[in-house]
């Protein structure tokens, strides 16, 4: 799995609550059987003025000039600043795949929906939860300063602001370890294969109807 250690980049502010995964990547793009190539359709319905089709060349589609991803100052941004309940709705992992493919490495929000939050870690994206008033300040500062960048240091669980202020963030130790080392979850679990087998045979004795 992809590693996450340190990341410095331009902040893209997406000022909208309850951003759902349909909004992040609309369903017509879910027909792909690959994990890559979703970046050009990230936030498709907000980003373009026409209706997007799978496998379409997006380079001459009409852009929505009001949408934040299309504004010159946020080009190349790697950190997404968002509002509460980010990633709600469908379980589609195509949402983090699209964010990743676009180049987003870290998302900061006051809260995330469970399944999406989990899916981020599986793809080397770091979702960070910060207090709402701190997120408010980051939105203000991003708006006020063109080229506003944050530096994320996962090992030390710190965010460095341009004015030198340091914000601390929480992360569960197991998730931190997996991200820092780019570990493969399945291999990790298979280290417990004997425990799984032992459980399974006990469980089968107890509930044989589950093993028909």
């Amino acid at each position: 799995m992809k590693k996450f250690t340190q990341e410095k980049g331009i902040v893209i502010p997406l000022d909208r609550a309850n951003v759902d995964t349909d909004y992040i990547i609309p369903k017509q793009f879910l027909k792909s059987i690959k994990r890559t190539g979703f970046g050009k359709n990230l936030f498709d319905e907000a980003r373009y003025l026409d209706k997007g089709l799978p496998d379409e060349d997006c380079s001459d589609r009409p852009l929505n000039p009001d949408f934040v991803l299309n504004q010159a100052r946020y080009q190349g941004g790697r950190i997404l600043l968002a509002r509460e309940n980010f990633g709600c709705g469908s379980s589609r992992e195509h949402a983090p795949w699209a964010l990743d493919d676009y180049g987003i490495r870290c998302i900061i929000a006051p809260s995330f929906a469970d399944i999406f939050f989990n899916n981020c870690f599986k793809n080397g994206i770091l979702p960070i939860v910060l207090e709402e008033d701190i997120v408010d300040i980051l939105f203000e500062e991003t708006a006020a300063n063109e080229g506003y960048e944050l530096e994320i240091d996962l090992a030390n669980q710190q965010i460095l602001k341009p004015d030198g202020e340091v914000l601390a963030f929480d992360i569960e130790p197991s998730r931190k370890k997996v991200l820092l080392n780019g570990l493969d979850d399945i291999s990790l679990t298979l280290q417990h294969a004997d425990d799984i087998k032992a459980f399974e045979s006990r469980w089968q004795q107890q509930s044989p109807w589950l093993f028909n």
Partner: protein
Amino acid sequence: MAGKTLYDKLWDSHLVKDLDDGTSLLYIDLQYIHEVTSPQAFEGLRLAKRKAWRSGANLATPDHNVPTTLSERSRGVEGIIDPVSKIQVKSLDANCLEFEISEFTIDDPRHGIVHIIGPEQGRTLPGMTIVCGDSHTSTHGALGALAHGIGTSEVEHVLATQTLQQRKAKNMLVKVNGRLGTGITAKDMVLAIIGKIGTAGGTGYTIEFAGDAVQALSIEGRMTVCNMAIEAGARAGIVAVDDLTIEYLEGRPFAPKGEQWKQAVSAWRDLHSDADAEFDKVVELEGSEIEPQVSWGTSPEMVAPVNARVPDPQEVENASRRGNYQQALKYMGLEPNTPIQDIQLDRIFIGSCTNSRIEDLRAAAAVVKGRKVAKNIKQALVVPGSGLVKAQAEHEGLDKIFIEAGLEWREPGCSMCLAMNADQLGEGEHCASTSNRNFEGRQGFGGRTHLVSPAMAAAAAVSGHFVDVRTLDLN
């Protein structure tokens, strides 16, 4: 020590081990698989040269992407016109063959939406842990199973290890007291619950639905409620096992038989929260106060009773919420204070894993019987949840009632619930839909979804706008 909640019991019985990092390894009894969120998982297994840990603990069916017209469906997978969809459905078939996973293929009479066919076949059983790469897996909790949606990486993880690394959620009890009024359905109940606790109200919790009004629901009604637990932010919703659960399961094809049935039933009798169990959060509603619900915005929490008006954002104090309301009304093309009943509709969708079971179709048919779809309605679709629901409805003559009234009778699948196939809303069109999500663009680019019960959707179909279904005479 306090007793255990149902969720605690289900968790404890599946705990393989607590890992030293604070997570736990949980055994998974059953995984449902569909064509959209599985191809990359199978590809991952292939690349790592891994096999399925226990292929018999999986059941697959294509549903999200399949066409629903008879002309396409009568030719099976080859009949799918959209080439990209066809590849996805064919990939599922090939992957299931390769990994020895049973599949109800597109032309199998038992085919349908994963969350419909599982309970229908008795594959979903009380006391199981169930996952699927689909957030509405919470549906299966209606039978006393711990069921939730997962992402594709986890689909692969479950295929390879039969477990998930999990963090235990907190316990929430949503209790609906008393009785629902006449004409009020499980859908109205769950929309009212979401309206009350909000779309993030259940985040981090497993919700147990209880109370007299919940227990009085049929198993199908309980599925409708659990189905939308995720719309309240909770990954899983559950209902305790009772006589109704056991009656529902008896004799279903995959349900245990003979001695095993007796043994299973006695184990299932314990699947309820202990009387002295403690919940981290308790929310109560009065069943008698719930009215037919209609969503007016772009999030399932934006609901109102049918006799109310669209809210006025100016009256909302919280600035961020006010902004959300403004954004939603703009997208929905609605003016503040419009009576809900004045919202004119263009299309009607009766279907989805929330409301496409036989009871839903009966409720809708009872309303449209002897009536005609209103002139302003461009299309009214009825999409049964499975091949068997369709056959049962036809046996009861419901298809004729729908067709006679001017609705279209389709083949099973997810259809306009997420509009991955040809069944879609046009830009700006309003739809009364029995599905579960009213997000922007969910049912088609620029489409405007209003979530309602099947009876309310049917009433809207024959009226051309929302009406209180309780005011119509039923035939």
